[in-house]
């Protein structure tokens, strides 16, 4: 007669999970490669058709430099504004309950859904010289926002902030709230908990959101050209320059697109490296 244990046998906890019995996962890899090719091939097309011989002279044109500089500064400013407003908004959506929360959450995504040009018109109707709000500003201060560099930032914030909010909200939802409780027991007020625990622990989500936001702001075209207009050095960002170059000289448009592509790739790769290497 053998003694028996009712407890059951110990499970090997560290055994790696193998999917599909170790066979090559064709079902995933094939569509994945198709997807990658679909996204990358258009860029390959740009590279293939780039007018390499005149590339240098075109790159040195002051218009290109101005548009690039303006794009980089406005996209960065738009990201900063989005962080300032979007992170608290994400916190509100993720962590509080109030009547109309679901509606508010849906409203945040509106700029993602409507065509940016319509967004630009909407901004004009509100913030323009004759806009719902803008007319008072204009009447009292004589200031008119459209056609100024700040207007570019406003248009970019409008279309890009939702990316940040959604990303940060997701990170805040996924965060383990017990750490916040731990901080509270150590004497941290709500503000300190948010600043020193919630935000640092949600940092990857915030950073991912900021990168998305920056990229979207950099590529923003429709709302910008509608709300801020197009004037070289003041409101003409790279996408606008690309569009207008396309009207006259597709070669120039290709060059501008390549510049935009390379600069944004460089920034994103650097950012990602720093983000991944920093623990």
């Amino acid at each position, binding site marked *: 007669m053998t003694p028996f244990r009712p407890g059951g046998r110990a499970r090997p906890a560290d055994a790696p999970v193998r999917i599909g019995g170790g066979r090559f996962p064709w079902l995933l890899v094939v569509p994945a490669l198709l997807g990658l090719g679909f996204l990358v091939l258009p860029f390959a097309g740009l590279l293939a058709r780039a007018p390499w011989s005149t590339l240098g002279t075109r790159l040195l044109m002051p218009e290109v430099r101005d548009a690039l500089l303006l794009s980089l500064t406005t996209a960065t400013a738009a990201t900063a504004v989005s962080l300032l407003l979007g992170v608290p908004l994400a916190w509100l959506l993720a962590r509080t309950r109030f009547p109309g929360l679901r509606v508010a959450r849906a409203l945040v995504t509106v700029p993602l859904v409507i065509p940016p040009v319509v967004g630009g*018109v909407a901004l*004009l*109707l509100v913030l*323009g*010289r*004759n806009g719902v709000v803008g007319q008072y500003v204009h009447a009292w201060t004589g200031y*008119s926002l*459209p*056609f100024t560099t700040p207007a570019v930032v406003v248009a970019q914030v409008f279309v890009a902030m939702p990316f940040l909010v959604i990303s940060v909200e997701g990170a805040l939802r996924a965060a383990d709230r017990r750490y916040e409780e731990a901080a509270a027991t150590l004497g941290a007020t709500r503000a300190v908990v948010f600043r020193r625990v919630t935000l640092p622990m949600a940092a990857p989500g915030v950073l991912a959101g900021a990168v998305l936001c920056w990229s979207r702001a950099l590529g923003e075209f429709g709302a910008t*050209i*509608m709300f*801020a*207009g*197009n*004037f*070289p050095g003041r*409101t*003409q960002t790279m996408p*606008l320059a690309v*569009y*207008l*170059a*396309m*009207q*006259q000289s*597709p070669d120039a448009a290709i060059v501008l697109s390549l510049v935009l592509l390379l600069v944004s790739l460089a920034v994103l790769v650097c950012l990602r490296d720093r983000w991944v290497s920093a623990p």
Partner: protein
Amino acid sequence: MRRPPALLRAPLAASVILSAAACAPVPDGSAEDARTLTVFAAASLTGAFEELGGVFEERNPGTAVEFSFAGSSDLAAQVNAGAPADVFASASTATMDLVVDAGGAGGEPVVFARNVLEIAVPPDDPAGIGSLDDLAEDGVSVALCAEEVPCGAAARAVLDASGVEFEPATLERDVKAALTKVELGEVDAALVYTTDVAAASGRVRGVPFPEAEEAVNDYPVAVLADAPEAGLAASWVELVTSPEGAEVLSGAGFRTP
């Protein structure tokens, strides 16, 4: 012709047998007989061409006219990239030349309409614009088209020739965008074509000015070299250059040759 793949062959055969067995009289496949004329035209031609399209379809039963209205440069790029169009009507000779130089035109382009600039102001005209010189006054905000698009090139030519200098608030990507800014009252004036003012009548007011004669914009039309319906295309060119075509175009604010 390529043989259909095996998977398709069986049902195809079945349907052939079935229709043969039914012995039903098959009506003349209208889908095969209908002919479609594809016209690529500058956006400013929208109203006039749609009206002429109706006339054309009436005169040529079984024919449908399909339009693609867009900026002339976009259309030129599409034609040069092999878009299946029969006719190209451009808002400038320069954009037409892009197609001609690429060997895309089937014949010599014909100018069928002309357009001149006008100052568009909001109906209440807050800045009190009466002449081109007024645009250069302090505090007047003006939208021009970007020089890369035809209306911007025309505006630049007019301003250079008349020596009027000012910094515009914005260089819009097309006439419609410039007009929107006027309609919303965000700018006091815009330099657009008479046809655009005619199309937006009620929402903006037009102020003609003599300097506009410095940049009269020619609208050329051409049958395309690779036109699938070259015959219909030639008829279309004939229609738009006829007196009847001229009447419709005048109604839309164009001058006709």
